[in-house]
């Protein structure tokens, strides 16, 4: 291990930032994939994997990804909720991995709502 320089401190903390964001439960955007039995049957795991991949590919640090149970609208699964800090959560329905990718790029990263896939804004919150 080479001797640490001042800059290296930043590098290391940058590298670990995503992990820390998850541990602190913070993050600018929170994506919830609904993974009830219905969701999983409809392909929620694929959606989840897409989001995980996207986070890694784009090297995003401040997005946290979480799961929840059935949202009650089983017919429109797979579903996901995107909640940008300080804004109302948005629910997306009938997702596939293409759609998930687009939602990630547009809404999660840029903050632009993808109206085509959205079900509603401001639904119940997970608590």
């Amino acid at each position, binding site marked *: *291990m*080479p*001797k*640490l*320089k*001042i800059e*290296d*401190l930043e590098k*290391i*903390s940058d*590298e*670990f*930032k*995503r*992990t*820390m*964001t*998850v*541990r*602190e*439960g*913070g*993050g600018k955007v*929170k994506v*919830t*994939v*609904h*993974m*009830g*039995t219905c969701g*999983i049957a409809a392909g929620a795991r694929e959606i*989840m994997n897409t989001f*995980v991949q996207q*986070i*890694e590919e784009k090297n995003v640090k401040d997005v*946290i*990804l*979480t*799961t*929840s*149970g059935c949202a009650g609208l089983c017919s429109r699964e797979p579903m996901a909720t995107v909640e940008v800090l300080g804004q109302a959560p948005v629910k997306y329905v009938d997702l596939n991995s293409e759609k998930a990718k687009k939602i990630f790029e547009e809404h999660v990263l840029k903050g632009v709502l993808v109206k085509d896939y959205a079900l509603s804004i401001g639904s119940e919150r997970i608590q």
Partner: protein
Amino acid sequence: MKSYRLQLMVCAGTGCVSNHSFEIKDALEKEIAKHKLQTEAEVVTTGCNGFCGAGPLVVVQPDGIFYQMLKVSDIPLLVEEHLLKGRPVKKLMYVPPKEEAPIPKMSNIPFFSDQTLVALRNRGMIDPENINDYIARGGYKALAKVLMSMTPDEVLQEIKKSGLRGRGGGGFPTGIKWETCKRIQSDTKYVICNADEGDPGAFMDRSIIEGDPHSVIEGMMIGAYAIQNICEGYIYVRMEYPLAIKRFNIAIEQAKEYGLLGEKIFDTDFNFDIKVRRGAGAFVCGESTALMTSIEGNPGEPRAKYIHTVEKGLWDKPTCLNNVETWTNVPPIILKGAEWFSSIGTGDVTHDAWGGSKGTKVFSLAGKVNNTGLVEVPMGITLRDIIFNIGGGIRDGKKFKAVQTGGPSGGFIPENLINLPVDYEELTKVGSMMGSGGMVVMDEDNCMVDMAKYFLKFTQEESCGKCIPCREGTKRMLDILENITSGKGKEEDLNLLEELSNVIVESSLCALGGSAPNPVLTTLKYFREEYEAHVKDKKCPARVCKQLLTYTIDEKQCVEVGHGCGVCKKNCPDNAIIGEIKKAHHIDQNKCGKCGVCYDVCRFNAIRVE
């Protein structure tokens, strides 16, 4: 860099480890692999979470779901429901006393939400055996800051301004200590971290070391930089903390690998190295001079401190010794500034370093409260807040009686002082002290004489025996207390206790003897009537002192409900119970040894105690 969707923070503090938290960890990893979730979820072992009474603990992040009192058999359910399906498992969550609904999120549990974390800032967040975790949480940035942009004097002024005072007990202003040590001319100086935490039931320092060893190391380095001419640092850890020793050694090793310890740190002229020394388990070695003689390889006995250790300490060289918690507080002060730190707490330290208590203090909350564990609170918080909010009140709805602060030589604080703000001066005023942060809560079932005896027995046994007042005096006090609790007390004993206590306080060589009588003095002050009950009426109001109790058998209950079962007779070691099967039994008071076995074995509630 692999990123995980989920982080499972398994508490690996000593409390949880002894409750098999490593088995929980293994079970989690096994289950995760079974569900092929290993790419999504990472299991991390952390230092002590603080809520030791609820261990073993797992916190699932990012949701912040707090699972408590886990068993290995709970794990498959937890993994399948929460990790796979995203449904947090209610039955494994924390339920506040007297309530039914669980609180899923850690941040909403009062035990956690009412705390302010400075010393414990990284608790439950990092893997203590991984330096990268510490750095990712801003670690060693304070060191970089002082080395790059601050002169030693600036660092010193910052610490002085912050109002930080020693967290080990005495509350000596840290800045002044550093300044004095810096002023003494010497080519060789030492810094020492006192991690010989010996108070029974107190484990603040252990928790910090086990959970965040690098913060201590960083604090020591900043101190060494400020004081200058420091050739080495020592960390004195008691042998009973093997995990702490291990984590310190790992941390030092990793810091050396990164070049954070050693020569030319960050390519500056600053050199520093740290050695770990293990204490052999003598309580008195927590005293600074005894600790230093112990490091030197001599029997750990204190010496007079008329010449301070900052002038002549380890190997007669100027030595700056601070407690673990004190050192840990240093990096945040540097990073966030003295103003931030002094905004927390009481009083004003701008002119008088002794004028206030700043920052936070970690307490280990124990005794008859619902939530026991480690709490960090801002100075000036009331005892009521700590005991009733964070601690969740008295167990089983009993009545609060007193709280003892400051370890075995601290004093007892009665109920009428419950609104006392917790800071150095206020605690001293009522006859107790901050100490290293022990806090033992007592309810109506505790006998104050017995409690005072318990703590005095501890200090008496741990007295090194060097000076007469502590060696002989505490033993005489204990003898008197033994007499009182066994019904042989005389009225004049109370005055004798007071006289002896005062002499011991005034004339002992070190703080151990000087504070040993505190439990007795404060109980005499606030609970004198209990002593008098023991001495005059030969009664123990809390029914604790067995020698003062009378065991009788309720004959009616014995015959009618228990049909004279004779179990008590069979078990009585003194053969004091007379009676035949199916007939009423009774106790021969002359023979009764007051052991209480009959009370414990009687299934029909027929034994009466008075």
